[in-house]
């Protein structure tokens, strides 16, 4: 009895070393401490922050200027339209780029070049794109905003499309080739039906993100609800700003719910897949088993 126990104890593997993990944790903590201790911030302002926020809240929402809805609602609609047109531009332009960026469809050098191009587009924030490129082209207004949103969206959408295409089942492609279909027909019948639901779900998810970007673009002259927010806040018309904020919150939540419902109808569990794609840059790992 004792002999077996001793043998078992002897056979037990040594516990794995935690040194690397501990070093990583310490390094992270050190970086965080550095940021907190060296940033030049007037912390004394924090003391009366709750009081200031409360007074701002009172002036904004107790009560908001309800009559201002005549201005805020059309502005919000313009922002939604800006986001929709922008997403559509991104979708239309990213689809062919996704095919050229997928390693199993196009050749290695082409797909690498397309990937670099997509990453470079992502580096230009919408706000900068609008000011630098699209306001000169389309003038001040929501059209410049829609173009900026559209071009910026190509980066993410193209990458996700390419990755979705790379993980397709090659069977239908081979079947289409075996029938002697020309290249374009192979893509249309062999590839597209496999990836389209997922890609449409990504487009809708991107629309939700772009709706928030459309609000931002207002302050650099792209109109919509962002312009209303920026004007009312800088002229300190807080009751009007309060109403505009209420409009933004309700409209955004409403559209998120509708878009999310449609996405879930298109693919099961699309919330998780979209998030997975957003964070890890690849459609979820659960695809692998398909």
């Amino acid at each position: 009895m004792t002999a077996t126990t001793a043998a078992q104890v002897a056979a037990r593997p040594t516990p794995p070393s935690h040194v690397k993990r501990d070093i990583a944790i310490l390094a992270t903590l050190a970086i965080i401490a550095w940021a907190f201790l060296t940033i030049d911030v007037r912390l004394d302002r924090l003391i009366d922050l709750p009081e200031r926020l409360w007074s701002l809240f009172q002036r904004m929402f107790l009560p908001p200027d309800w009559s201002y809805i005549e201005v805020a609602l059309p502005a919000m609609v313009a922002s939604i339209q800006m986001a929709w047109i922008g997403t559509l531009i991104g979708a239309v332009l990213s689809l062919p780029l996704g095919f050229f960026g997928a390693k199993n469809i196009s050749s290695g050098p082409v797909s690498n070049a397309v990937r670099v191009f997509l990453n470079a587009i992502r580096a230009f924030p919408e706000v900068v794109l609008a000011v630098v490129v699209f306001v000169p082209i389309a003038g001040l207004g929501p059209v410049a905003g829609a173009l900026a949103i559209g071009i910026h969206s190509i980066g993410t959408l193209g990458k996700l499309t390419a990755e979705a295409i790379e993980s397709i089942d090659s069977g239908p492609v081979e079947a289409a080739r075996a029938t002697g279909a020309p290249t374009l027909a192979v893509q249309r019948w062999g590839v597209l039906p496999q990836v389209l639901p997922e890609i449409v779900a990504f487009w809708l998810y991107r629309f939700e993100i772009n709706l928030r970007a459309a609000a931002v673009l207002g302050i650099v002259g792209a109109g919509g609800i962002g312009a209303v927010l920026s004007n009312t806040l800088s002229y300190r018309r807080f009751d009007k700003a309060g109403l505009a904020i209420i409009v933004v919150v309700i409209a955004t939540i409403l559209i998120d719910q509708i878009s999310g419902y449609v996405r879930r109808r298109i693919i099961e569990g699309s919330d998780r897949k979209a998030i997975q794609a957003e964070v890890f840059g690849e459609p979820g790992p659960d695809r692998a088993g398909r």
Partner: protein
Amino acid sequence: MTAATPAVQRPPRPKRSLAVPAGLLGAILITLWAASEQFGIGFDIAAILEDLSKGSLILTEVLQPNFAFFPRTIEPMIETIQMAIIAATIGCAIALPAGFLASRVTAPGRISLAVTRSILNVIRALPDLLYAMVFVTALSIGPLAGILALIFFNIGVGAKLLSETVDAVDRGPIEAADAAGSTHVQMVRTGVFPQVLPNYVAFSLYVFELNIRASTVIGIVGAGGIGNTLNAQMGFFNFNNVGLIILELFILVFVIELISIQLRRRLT
């Protein structure tokens, strides 16, 4: 005839679903409405194509970055990184309990689930820029307003990502913890938390990266960091300097992405 060839019995064709054509028609109608001159934003492709060459005027300047400007970007760049780290730390620390409260699996009750989800929906519905504008109004300009804006932005993103992950955990350890008679908090701590920890760390890194990207936007309203500098240079029409700042941000985001890919690979 059918009696003569009973072997070939085809299954009935599935009914054609109306959902796809209806969805397509809806999308087309929304597009026509949104693009129209009268009801929408007045999107005219012909006019845009005509003026396309104007887009290159400033772009050529941006694509020739002025490297002499580099020394003046160091300090605001460091401030941006500090703001991003502080906001990600505090935001993700708050997002941890919020994410557990907002998941069906770990919420202690239906009411707390509904309340947490509603609050998070409102937090997420407001764009980062609006937080920045509100905090700048309340606190005047400076990095503190930017940090607070980013914290709210991070709570929204972090809690959403975490609750979606918690929703999909393996229920086995939870049942085991319940069977062993653990309290709710003990169950979350031992049955769920270890499962989502690698993802949580990955999300935190992602949120940090988002903060660096958001810094351009936050700075435009005066909430500190490199965005302030960027906005000033755009205002002075110094587009060579704008080009340098964009290049720096691109490299910074690229390096952070590389590091977090490495770290995530080890975690999962």
